[in-house]
């Protein structure tokens, strides 16, 4: 029964924080928000690293390596595209200059 209750606590509290924080995110940024949360939830990468790198049978590690690849692709593309989009949001155009 390890840390059953403490993990449930973490989940519930983190969900509340998530709701509170996300509600305040500017509507302008909902698309970048989604790509950012994609990248963040790819933190599942830690599970993939443990499975891939452990002293386990080959077939287990192959599953891990595919998962690691998929998570890493999400991390890389998620953060890069979020930053690329955010760079485009400017307050004002310099008058006269295009």
């Amino acid at each position, binding site marked *: 029964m390890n840390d059953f209750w403490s993990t449930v606590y973490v989940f519930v509290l983190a969900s509340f924080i*998530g*709701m509170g924080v996300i509600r305040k995110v500017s509507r302008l940024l909902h698309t970048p928000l989604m790509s*950012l949360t994609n990248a963040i939830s*790819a933190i*599942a990468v830690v599970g993939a690293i*443990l*499975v891939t790198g452990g002293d386990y049978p080959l077939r287990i590690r192959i599953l891990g390596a595919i998962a690691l690849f998929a998570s*890493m692709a999400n991390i890389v593309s998620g953060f890069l595209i979020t930053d690329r989009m955010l760079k485009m949001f400017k307050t004002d155009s310099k008058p006269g200059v295009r």
Partner: protein
Amino acid sequence: MYGLSQFAYLVASALFIFALHWMNTPATARKGVYAGIAGTALAIIVTWAEPTVIHHVWIIGAIALGFVVGVPLSRVPLTAVPQRTALSHAFGGIAAGLVGTAEYYLRLAEDPGWLTPFRMVALIAEIILGYLTFTGSLMAAGKLQEVKWVPQRPVTYPGQNLVNFLLLATAVVVAGLIAFNPAAAWAPLAFPVIIVLALLFGVLLIIPIGGADMPTVIAILNSYAGLSAVAMGFVLDSKLLITAGALDGSSGLILAIIMCKAMNRSFTNVLFGAFGQVQQAKGGGEQKQYKAETAEGAAQVLEQASLVVIIPGYGMAVAQAQHKVRELYDQLKKRGVTVKFAIHPVAGRMPGHMNVLLAEADIPYTDLVEMDDINHDMPQADVALVVGANDVVNPAAHTDKSSPIYGMPIIDAEKARTIFAIKRSKNPGFAGIDNELYFNDRTWMLFGDAKAVIGDLVKELSGGSGRH
């Protein structure tokens, strides 16, 4: 060592919360990305340093491959961002599914006692959510990308919801049996059954959903991808995973709720309502007449205006007209006209899509105004210019109870003094719902491709600046 790595995970969790917090305004948003990168990098390094991790070449190889695929995926055109997002949900789903599968077979062979009912329930939730998100998101990405073999139109058949329900119920029953007998002789054989059912369920869940509902569906899949990470966190007893997954899950949920509200539809209606078969607009009836206007005439009205509200829809992006719109914006600003963009929450193909497309065209975000705020100003607007939007300005949402969009909040374009609507052709029944706005006394149609029409307006405005 344990304390140190737990501390690092705690810091990473805090960084993720800050990352999302900084997204509350565009001014600090990029800082949020850096916080996210820092948190992820920290978690990866600490995990990699675990003494049980010994196959470093494998890890380096998989990470390198992740970069090879990830970098090009981050450079897609912004019109394709919804597909990319769906694809990344698929990646997240498959990662969770595979790790869960690996954990099960690994523990079964080495330490069956580890597979407590609690861990098994979490593990099975992880793989069901993971695999159904995988196929569901691939279908969604295929629909958005308009891949040939993925049906664009919603696919429906009698008893569809019953079939889906039975499928899910079967998966849950098998899951329950395995959860409490994880080490039984038949369990390793029944496990793949759950995988197959989840994969199938993902496909069946998405095929009845039409294009208009894609923004909601993407948000829901986002939520599922997050929840599968939470489940993985329960299995591995990782509070970092639980926190990050919960943040992602609540984000997807909130976005889905916003989308549903913006369409005046319920969650269940989006998922199980098969919105696709929009009843053909009551054909026949009196043939109403459009009033057409020339670019020259429209330009003169625009020039005289003090407030112009541009209402863009996905049609603007399809016609690649954003940059011409920006030129029009510049021309009008130069004349002292106030120009605002009215953004409906479901304009575009995913939450916030229109804002990103306009930001790319260098339009300051301070002039992108949300629906509720702009509706206050609409009666003061001299001109409402509708570019590639349709349903989101259709007054039938207020007046016509038989309309499928009745009750949906819309941008009140019809309250402006003059309305210009750009439309490709005079044919009515453009596979959708009739739009009364086009026959309004104060509406003038500008026929043609959006990019060409706006180009003409710009030409009139820039050429005419010397006259009178």
